[in-house]
C-alpha cells in the first residue's frame, strides 16, 4: 500500500481481500524473535534474553538493522518500515520443519513452560506484521494490539474504542475439547458436565465498556450483563458484601440465582518496609540491624491482619503467614507448619497471633520502649506512603492502620501521594512503609520469592523488589530455586527462604485475597481464576432462559409516569383557570363577565 492509499479504513475487515493459512512452527519462531525489537512493548525481553540462546545478541543486531531501515526517517513517525525478522536467524529458536519448534535455553529454567503458556509466546504470522507495517496503519489505529491475528476460538469483529468490542467465533478454530479433569468441587458444581465437547460454546462475545461502577452493577442485577467484568476476579466479593449488608439485597440475589463462586487467589497484599531506610530498614551495623529487625517484627505482630480481613470485607481474604499463597508448590499456607513463628504461635493446632506484649517487648529491644526513643525520649514517627484516591473507604483503612501502630506507641503519618510521586520516591529509595501487592504471572513459588531477591531491588536496579530487601543467604537460595523442579529439594529451599523472610520481616505479610466471580444463573462453566484468562471459550449460555429472566426482571412500571402526567394536566388546567380568572378581575378585585 502506498501512503494515503489506506483512506478512511480503520479495520482490517474493511479490506477487500481476507485470508488465512495453517499455523506453522515458524510463526512461533517469529514471535520469539519479535521480542528483540524495542518497537513493541515487550516486558519480558529481559528475562527471555537471559535464557533463550543468542537472544541478547539478536536484540543488538535487530536494533542496528532497525536503525539502518529507519535512517533518515523521523523517529517520531508512526509509519515504520517492515522489520522482517525472517531475514535474521536466532540461534535459540528455529523450526527444523513445518510442525517442529526448537527452542534452546541456556542452562535449566523450569519456569519456561509457564512462559510458553502465556501470550508472550503466542505465534505471530509474518504476514500480519508486514500488513500492519504499511503506511497509515498506525495512524488509523490498526495494529496487532487492537486487531490481533491468531488461532484462538474468537476473532475481533468490531472495535469501537471505549465503547464496544465484539468477538466472533473463529470459523477456522481447531476446536479444543472442554476439559474432563477437575477437582471434586468442580465436578459437584457441574463444571465438568460439558466434558469432551468442542469449545467455544458461544458464537459472539460482546464487551460493553462501562466506566462507572454503579451502572455496571445495576446492569448485572438487571440481567443485561452475563458477567460484570470478564477480566476481573473480585466482582463476586463486592456482591457478597452487599448480601451481608442488606437482607433485601440478599433475598434479591438469592431469588435471581446469581452465582458467586470463590477461591483464594494467586495474589498477595502486604505492607512493605523499605530496607534502605535508616530507621525501619536493614541498618548499617550488626547491632543496628538486630534492632531494626526487632522493630519490623514488632510491627508485624501489631498489625492484626485477621482483624483487617474481618472489618474490611471487600478486601476479603486469608491472612498471610509468608509470601506464598496456597495452590503453589512449596506453599505451606493453611497448615500448622506454615504459621509465621515471628507473628503467630500455634495453639490447639491453630495459628494464633502473638500477644501485643511480645510486640511491645520487641519495640523496646529495638530502642523504642513505649514507642519513644530510649535516648532522647522523642516519639517514634513512621511514614506510610500511599498512592491512590482518598476515598472514605481508604480513610477507614488509614485510620485502622494508624491504630495498629499506636498499639505499641508508634505514630504513623500517612503520606498520601499520586502514583507519579510514589514511584519517584520508590525509585529514589525515599519511601519508608508502603502498601503493595503482587498478582502471579505463573503458579510457581519463584514468581513470588523473586520479589525479595536482592538484585531485583527497585531503587537500585529498577526491579520488582520494592522493599529493596537484600540477604545473601536468601539470594543464594533463590539462585538454587530457579533451577529446581518441583520435589523435596525444592520444598526444602522454599521452606528455608520463607523462614528467612519471616525472620527478617521486610514485609508484614498481609493477606491472600479471595477471587470471586459474579455470574448469571444462565451462564454455565464459569470459575474465577487469575491464571486462566481465556474463560470466555468455556462459557455456555442458556439464551432462552436469559431472554425469559431478562423480561421477567425488567417489566417497566408505568403507573408513576401516568400519575405524574395526570398531575401535570391538572396543574395546567388549574393554571389556565386561575389565569383566566385573573384576566377578568377588575381594579377592585371583582371577577367581571
Amino acid at each position: 500500500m502506498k501512503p494515503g492509499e489506506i483512506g478512511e479504513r480503520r479495520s482490517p475487515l474493511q479490506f477487500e481481500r481476507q485470508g488465512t493459512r495453517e499455523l506453522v512452527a515458524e510463526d512461533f519462531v517469529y514471535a520469539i524473535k519479535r521480542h528483540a525489537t524495542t518497537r513493541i512493548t515487550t516486558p519480558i525481553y529481559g528475562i527471555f534474553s537471559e535464557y533463550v540462546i543468542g537472544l541478547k545478541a539478536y536484540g543488538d543486531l535487530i536494533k542496528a538493522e532497525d536503525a539502518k531501515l529507519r535512517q533518515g526517517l523521523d523517529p517520531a513517525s508512526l509509519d515504520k518500515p517492515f522489520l522482517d525478522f525472517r531475514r535474521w536467524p536466532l540461534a535459540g529458536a528455529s523450526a527444523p520443519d513445518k510442525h517442529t519448534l526448537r527452542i534452546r535455553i541456556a542452562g535449566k529454567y523450569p519456569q519456561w513452560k509457564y512462559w510458553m503458556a502465556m501470550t508472550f509466546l503466542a505465534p505471530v504470522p509474518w504476514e500480519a506484521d508486514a500488513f500492519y507495517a504499511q503506511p497509515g496503519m498506525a495512524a488509523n489505529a490498526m495494529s496487532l494490539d487492537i486487531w490481533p491475528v491468531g488461532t484462538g476460538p474468537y476473532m475481533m469483529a468490531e472495535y469501537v474504542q471505549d465503547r464496544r468490542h465484539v468477538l466472533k467465533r473463529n470459523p477456522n478454530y481447531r476446536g479444543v475439547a472442554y476439559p474432563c479433569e477437575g477437582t471434586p468441587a468442580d465436578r459437584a458444581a457441574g463444571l465438568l458436565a460439558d466434558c469432551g465437547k468442542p469449545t467455544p460454546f458461544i458464537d459472539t462475545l460482546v464487551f460493553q465498556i462501562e466506566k462507572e461502577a454503579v451502572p455496571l452493577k445495576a446492569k448485572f442485577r438487571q440481567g443485561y450483563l452475563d458477567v460484570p467484568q470478564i477480566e476481573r476476579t473480585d466482582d463476586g466479593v463486592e456482591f457478597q458484601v452487599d448480601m451481608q449488608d442488606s437482607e433485601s439485597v440478599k433475598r434479591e440475589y438469592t431469588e435471581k440465582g446469581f452465582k458467586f463462586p470463590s477461591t483464594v487467589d494467586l495474589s498477595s497484599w502486604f505492607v512493605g518496609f523499605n530496607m534502605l531506610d535508616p530507621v525501619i530498614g536493614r541498618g548499617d551495623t550488626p547491632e543496628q540491624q538486630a534492632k531494626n529487625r526487632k522493630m519490623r517484627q514488632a510491627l508485624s505482630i501489631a498489625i492484626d491482619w485477621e482483624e483487617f480481613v474481618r472489618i474490611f470485607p471487600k478486601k476479603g481474604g486469608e491472612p498471610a503467614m509468608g509470601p506464598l499463597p496456597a495452590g503453589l508448590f512449596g506453599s505451606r499456607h493453611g497448615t500448622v507448619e506454615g504459621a509465621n513463628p515471628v507473628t503467630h504461635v500455634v495453639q490447639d493446632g491453630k495459628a494464633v497471633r502473638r500477644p501485643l506484649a511480645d510486640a511491645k517487648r520487641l519495640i523496646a529491644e529495638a530502642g523504642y520502649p513505649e514507642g519513644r526513643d530510649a535516648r532522647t525520649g522523642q516519639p517514634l514517627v513512621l511514614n506510610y506512603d500511599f498512592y491512590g484516591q482518598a476515598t472514605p473507604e481508604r480513610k477507614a483503612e488509614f485510620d485502622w492502620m494508624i491504630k495498629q501502630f499506636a498499639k505499641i506507641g508508634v505514630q504513623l503519618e500517612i503520606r498520601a501521594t499520586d502514583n507519579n510521586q510514589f514511584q519517584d520516591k520508590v525509585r529514589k529509595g525515599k519511601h519508608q512503609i508502603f502498601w503493595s501487592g503482587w498478582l502471579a504471572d505463573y503458579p510457581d513459588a519463584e514468581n513470588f520469592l523473586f520479589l525479595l531477591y536482592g538484585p531485583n531491588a527497585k531503587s537500585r536496579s529498577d526491579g520488582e523488589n520494592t522493599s529493596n530487601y537484600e540477604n545473601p543467604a536468601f539470594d543464594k537460595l533463590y539462585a538454587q530455586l530457579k533451577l529446581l523442579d518441583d520435589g523435596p529439594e525444592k520444598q526444602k529451599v522454599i521452606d528455608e527462604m520463607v523462614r528467612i523472610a519471616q525472620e527478617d520481616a521486610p514485609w508484614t505479610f498481609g493477606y491472600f485475597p479471595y477471587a470471586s466471580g459474579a455470574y448469571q444463573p444462565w451462564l454455565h462453566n464459569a470459575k474465577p481464576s487469575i491464571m486462566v484468562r481465556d474463560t470466555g471459550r468455556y462459557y455456555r449460555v442458556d439464551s432462552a432462559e436469559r431472554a425469559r429472566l431478562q423480561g421477567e426482571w425488567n417489566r417497566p412500571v408505568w403507573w408513576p409516569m401516568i400519575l405524574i402526567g395526570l398531575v401535570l394536566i391538572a396543574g395546567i388546567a388549574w393554571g389556565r383557570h386561575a389565569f383566566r380568572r385573573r384576566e377578568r378581575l377588575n381594579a377592585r378585585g371583582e371577577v367581571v363577565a
Partner: protein
Amino acid sequence: MLAYIVRRIGYGVLVLLGVNLATFILFFTVNTPDDMARLNIGGKRVTQEQITKWRVERGYDKPLYWNSGQQGSDQLTDTIFWERSVSLFKLDFGRADSESAGDIGHQVATRMVASLQLALPLFALQVIVSTLFALMLVMFRHTRLDFWGVVLCVLMLSISSLFYIIVGQFVFSKMLRLAPISGYAPGLDSVKFLLLPIALSLLARLGGEARLYRAMFLEETSKDYVRTARAKGLSEPEVLRRHVLRNALIPIITSAGSYLPYVFLGSLVFESFFGIPGLGAYVIDAISGQDFAIVRTMVFLGSVLYIATYIVIDIAYTWADPRVRLA
C-alpha cells in the same frame, strides 16, 4: 463590525497562547514525560530503554522549554513546548500518547457526534423550557405559584448534578425500569439511551436558568413600554411574548450562549455516568491516563470554542437590540 471581529480574533489568539502555556506548565508540573511513559507502558518490568523509546516516538525526548544543547533560535524551537504548540495552532493534533488511542483528530470527529446527540437537544430544550417556566412564573408573579416556583428553582439549583444522576438512575432505571441505566448506540438507537441523561441534565440546569430568566423578565415588566402595551389592551401573554421576551433577550443570549462550547465538547459528568462515548468522557479518560496530547488538544479546542462563542454572542446582541453597535 469587521474591524471589531478582527480585533476580537486577535485577542483570541493571545488568549489561546496563554491557555496553551498555562496547560503546558500545569501538566508538566505534576507529570514528567517519564511518569507518562511508565503509566502508558504499564504493567510489570518496565525498563528505562522502553521509557526512552516511548519518549522518542512521541517527541517527549527534548527539553520542555529551553534546549541549551542547541544554537540560536533552535534553543527555543527544538523543545517540546514549541513543537507541540506549533502543531496545535496548525490544528494538527497528532496521535494520542497512549498506545491504542490512535489519531486524536479522528477521535474528536467521531466522539463529537455522540456529544452533539446529547447536547444539542439538551441545549434547545434548556432554552425553551427555562424560558417558558420563567415566563409562567412572571405571568403569575406575586402569587403563591410564583413563590413556590422560585423556591423550587432555588432547591433545584442547590442540588449537585451528581445527585440528579444517582437518583435519576435509581428511580427511572432501577425501580421503574423505564430507561437503560447507561450505554450508547449510534444513530436512532441512541434515543432510548439519551432520553434519561437529557431529562436529568435539563432538570439539573432548569432551576438556575429559570430563576435568572425570571429576574430578567421581571425587570422588564416594570418598564414604561410594558405599561403602555397593557394600556393599549394587549393580553398578558401577548405583552410577555411580544415585548418582555424580546427585550430580555440579551441576558438570555449571554447565558444560553455561554453553554454553547459544551454542546460540542460534551458533558464531563453526564457522559461518564451514562457511558456515552463523547468528548467529555474522552477528556476524563485522558486526564486519568495522563495523556497530555489529548488533554492539551481538548483544552485548546475548548478555548477556541469559548472565544468563537463570545464573538457570536456579541454579534447576536446587534440582532437582538438594534441599538447595540460593535466598534
